[in-house]
């Protein structure tokens, strides 16, 4: 997949949150491996995945932290919100309770991330329309009221999975372009890769913050 260490210009950190069994890990797996994991075990703490995507001609590495939905991990996974540029908040369209818990997840997401963190609401299992327990319209209303991006998706068929990850990256990138993200600040969940070591000759720094960031400083 990767041909060199720095064949991308930015790193964006994501977290995936939501109740147990809504399909967080399956969404991640579908996105990184383009495969559906049929019986996926409950995540232990957090799981990590990466993929390089292209947004507006920029190669961006997504570092994705997929958190365990089990209640007993709730306190533990809170430490991963810090420094997330994107938060994917997932519910299961066939289980009302997972939708009802969104306000609690949203509270955590708002309190524990920074104001520029892009929050994307995902109604997963859209392939199970016959068992639907939450309408598209009400979820859309909830998303609009709270300023969230929203899509229904299916980790099983892959429908809209690509879109939620890419749309989140586009929005983050837009925030950078608009000057809303200070690339030198800690905890923004965005890192600019150094152009040293000749990895990406064609990288075009956006704005004037080109090379102060010395790479190695991890945000996660």
């Amino acid at each position, binding site marked *: 997949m990767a041909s060199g260490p720095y064949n991308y210009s930015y790193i964006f950190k994501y977290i995936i949150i939501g109740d147990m069994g809504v399909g967080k890990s399956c969404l991640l797996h579908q996105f990184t*491996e383009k495969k559906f994991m049929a019986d996926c*075990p409950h*995540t232990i*703490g957090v799981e*990590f995945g990466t993929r390089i995507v292209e947004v507006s001609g920029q190669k961006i590495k997504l*570092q994705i932290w997929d958190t365990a939905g089990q209640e007993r991990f709730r306190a*533990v996974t809170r*430490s991963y919100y810090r420094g997330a540029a994107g938060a994917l908040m997932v519910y299961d369209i066939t289980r009302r309770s997972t939708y009802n818990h969104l306000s609690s997840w949203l509270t955590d997401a708002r309190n524990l991330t920074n104001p520029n963190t892009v929050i994307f609401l995902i109604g997963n299992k859209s392939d199970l329309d016959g068992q639907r327990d939450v309408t598209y319209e009400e979820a859309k209303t909830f998303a609009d009221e709270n300023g969230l991006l929203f899509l229904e998706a299916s980790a099983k068929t892959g429908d809209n999975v690509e879109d939620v990850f890419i749309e989140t990256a586009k929005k983050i990138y837009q925030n950078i372009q608009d000057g809303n993200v200070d690339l030198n600040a800690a905890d923004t969940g965005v890192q600019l890769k150094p152009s040293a070591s000749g990895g990406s000759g064609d990288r075009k720094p956006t704005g004037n913050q080109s090379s102060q960031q010395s790479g190695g400083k*991890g945000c996660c």
Partner: protein
Amino acid sequence: MADNSELEKAIIGDFIPLAMIQAAEKEYKKKNEEGSLTDQDRFSYAWHLIKSRYKDDIKKGISIMGELCQDGTDQRDYLYFLALAYYKLEEYSEAEQCINRVLHMEPNNSQAKDLKKLVSGKIQQDNLIAAGVVGGAALVGAAAVGTLAVIGGAIVAKLISK
């Protein structure tokens, strides 16, 4: 999905800040004094300790997590974090034992497989180093014998010339 160095950075190098560990400790001690300590509290505190960058914390975490592991119902999680903790202490054979037990319960667990991959890599590396040390020692030994032979030869030569 990811190579070993990236995996290691994500899984092992994922330290949590000292302030968070201290907060967890405060909470744990408070509940302990109140006598209201639950397994959830123990787990949370042990997790924080194991995610520390300091070995003493990690050891303390192992001891709490280890106690949970004996009578808790969620052994899989405890074992996984014990494996992680032993890895961080560079006690790879203990780490291997724990992660093998997780894989025995869930052979297809990708997180367990990733950690196992890291553990196996370290064990292999250690074996290579051990082999290198033995090999190196043999070389040094051979060189010493050679040197002695040369010195011995020189003495003999001197004696003869006298």
